[in-house]
């Protein structure tokens, strides 16, 4: 790490970023004075703050290279360990979602496809490889990593994908291997994961040039846990009828817990959001004006359709109030315990929804249906994501049997809209709406 770069990073963090953000803030505030939308309640006030936080994160990332050790990490990787070594982290999946929302998926995927990466591969991976090959990104520039850190607790795909990155840049790849929880997680599995952490420490020390700072580590763990609990409370606020927030908002407000987990800014932000939601609840303000039906979403968002869908459903008086996806970050991180850091970290990360058997998923969804008063279920069958999608047809059938709730499967993709058919989706959704209206 060069001193000049460190100084530059420090300057940008303290002066440059706030300056730029300040300007951005002024700009968007002036834009914000618009007519209230007849379909939706007043927009969340803290959304502006979120935008600042995320813009700042990507803005600073340009200066991180050479100033701080940089790691590219998967969304399910135990990043707390890296934070204790002061790594600057980039989340390609979050970046992929961002590209998806801006409808850049096919363009960036095509770059990877030209290099021989097949269209059948996960589009987060294709986008990311496209970004690596072309240097194109809507956030300006992503810093080149010194380390790759992947955990297969969400999928094996990330392991294959990060291997390609590791080959391309000739940099080390750390894999945190979390045995899939077919039934019950065993003692030897926990030991295996703890052993892996211990093996990682010398590698992290070498790359960062720092010793593990036990105090910092505990602090990160505590912050991470508290933010996850706050996120859990935020989601729980949606149990209220009418719900003060929609799942489409949650998809967006998820960014800090995914990308900035373990940092103070995340906890602070979620506390602000939570108090705003509580205020809305006390005033009876709903996210949509006329909430008649409450829905649950399964799988990752269809990023290029979030906006369209949120209108489409709001028009029908339907509000999404729960999702297995947003729930993932609240579910297990509360296992974290700074007094037994390694072991609790192993549990928190290996018991996440995608590393857990399908019976677990079914029970979770049943619980969410009850607790959130869900009337119907929209299942996104995401071509990109086999671990999330394989089994959904049975899930649909079983939830109908057990809970009697109507559901619909949308065949689509998270970011690659070439795999999405508007007409086909519309037909299916119309049939779903009929079933919902006829049902109760």
């Amino acid at each position, binding site marked *: 790490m060069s001193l000049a770069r460190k100084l530059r990073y420090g300057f940008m963090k303290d002066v440059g970023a706030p300056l730029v953000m300040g300007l951005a803030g002024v700009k968007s505030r002036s834009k914000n004075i618009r007519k209230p939308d007849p379909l939706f309640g007043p927009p969340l006030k803290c959304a502006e703050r979120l935008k600042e936080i995320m813009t700042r994160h990507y803005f600073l990332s340009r200066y991180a290279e050479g100033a701080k050790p940089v790691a590219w990490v998967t969304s399910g990787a135990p990043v707390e360990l890296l934070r204790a070594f002061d790594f600057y982290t980039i989340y390609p999946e979050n970046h992929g979602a961002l590209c998806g929302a801006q409808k850049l998926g096919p363009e960036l995927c095509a770059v990877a496809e030209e290099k021989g990466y097949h269209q059948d591969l996960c589009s987060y991976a294709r986008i990311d490889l496209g970004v690596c090959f072309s240097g194109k990104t809507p956030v300006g520039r992503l810093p080149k990593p010194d380390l790759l850190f992947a955990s297969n607790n969400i999928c*094996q795909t990330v392991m294959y994908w990060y291997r*390609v990155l590791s080959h391309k840049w000739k940099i080390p790849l750390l*894999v945190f*291997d979390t045995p899939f929880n077919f039934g019950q997680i065993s003692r030897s599995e926990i030991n*295996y994961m703890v052993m892996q952490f211990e093996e990682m420490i010398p590698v992290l020390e070498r790359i960062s040039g720092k010793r593990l700072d036990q105090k910092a580590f505990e602090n990160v763990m505590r912050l991470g846990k508290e933010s996850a609990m706050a996120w859990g409370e935020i989601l729980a606020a949606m149990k209220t009828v009418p719900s003060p927030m929609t799942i489409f908002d949650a998809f967006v407000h998820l960014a800090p817990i995914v990308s900035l987990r373990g940092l103070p800014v995340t906890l602070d932000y979620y506390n602000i959001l939570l108090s705003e939601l509580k205020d809305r609840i006390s005033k009876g303000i709903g996210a949509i004006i006329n909430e008649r039906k409450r829905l649950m979403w399964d799988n990752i968002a269809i990023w290029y359709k979030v906006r369209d869908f949120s209108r489409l459903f709001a028009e029908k008086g339907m509000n999404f109030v729960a999702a297995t996806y947003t729930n993932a970050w609240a579910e297990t991180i509360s296992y974290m315990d700074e007094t037994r850091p390694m072991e609790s970290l192993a549990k928190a990360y290996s018991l996440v929804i995608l590393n857990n058997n399908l019976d677990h998923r*079914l029970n979770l969804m049943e619980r969410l249906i009850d607790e959130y008063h869900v009337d119907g279920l929209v299942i996104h069958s995401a*071509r990109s994501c086999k671990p999330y999608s*394989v089994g959904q047809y049975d*899930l649909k059938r079983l939830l109908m049997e057990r809970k009697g709730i109507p559901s619909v499967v949308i065949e689509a993709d998270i970011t690659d809209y070439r795999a999405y058919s508007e007409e086909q989706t519309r037909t299916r959704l119309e049939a779903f709406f009929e079933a919902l209206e006829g049902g109760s």
Partner: protein
Amino acid sequence: MIMNGHPEARARRDYILEQKRGFGRRVIGVFPAYYPRELLLSMNILPVEIWDPPLESSHANAHLQSYICSVVKQGLELILQGKCRDLDAFLFPHTCDSIQNLASIVNDYLGIEKPCYFFYHPKAPYKESSRWYYIKQLEDLALRLEKQFGPLNHHEFKKKVEQGEDLRRTIGELYRRRAEGTLGLSNVEFYRILRQVEYLHPDDFLPVLTAILKRPPDRKSKGLAVIVSGILPNPPEVLEHLDRLGINVADDDFLSCSRRLLARPAISTVPFEAMADSYFGMQPCCTKGSAIEDRLKSILDKAKSSSAKGVIFQMVKFCEPELFDVPILVEGLKAEGLATLVIDTELNQGMSGQLVTRLEAFAEMIG
């Protein structure tokens, strides 16, 4: 066990029934790819592998999306068509996301009476913890199996592990002779014989191989040599066509063949330790997370030692682990002057005219 009309399938079923009746063996249906065979055999369990049952997929489509590979589809189809009556249990190794979820569908959602076992193997890059955990997993699986199949006899276990070593050595010899060009088997014959490993007990399979190796060496074949890579040699028509074109498969990098059937000789003689030796002594493989450089090097070595002119990647559609490796492998092989061909295949669906054209054009190109 599979389609009654299909000759190979009938042979399998007859064999399984005979093994049950004659030797009191219990039978476990095993999904791809890596699993501790010797452990099962020592408990008098015959593993019967489910890679590509020749069935028309119809029932499976109600459970699996169109973007799931046909290894998973056909495997599920076999279960759904009720063709697993002769099996006492299933074993699902943790090979990829699709098999992982298939295992959970079968165990959690289908209400099937048969016990399901799971086997998770550590992913690369390997560290000390990987070996420790692998052995723990073996011990753990043994404990679980004992509940259904009775206690593990350690003497028997040691014998089976030794037999496993013997089998790998023999298959290794078969591969060596083929690479040298003196084995005298066509591509089709080679894989027809080798693939019997998927259900024959080693007591029966080893003699088959030894008999072949005992035959006097054939005159060195003059055909063009290629390496074939992918998950498994299906559709068999590809091999047939290569035979017809006078192209010899001199070595392979199939998951179902050399990647799991060959390994460095074990060092330890303690059974669990020896099994770990061979697991970690296998070739690099994407489903285990091996570095792509390692796999590239392994294929290049094979090409060098067999003087192969090119490498054919026979892809199972939608197979993510393979698809991620291919671009770098192709680039690396081309840089070393080897021709490459990547073909998409569907299991048991023969060859389209387009595929024939590709193979022939490849033959013209390296010829």
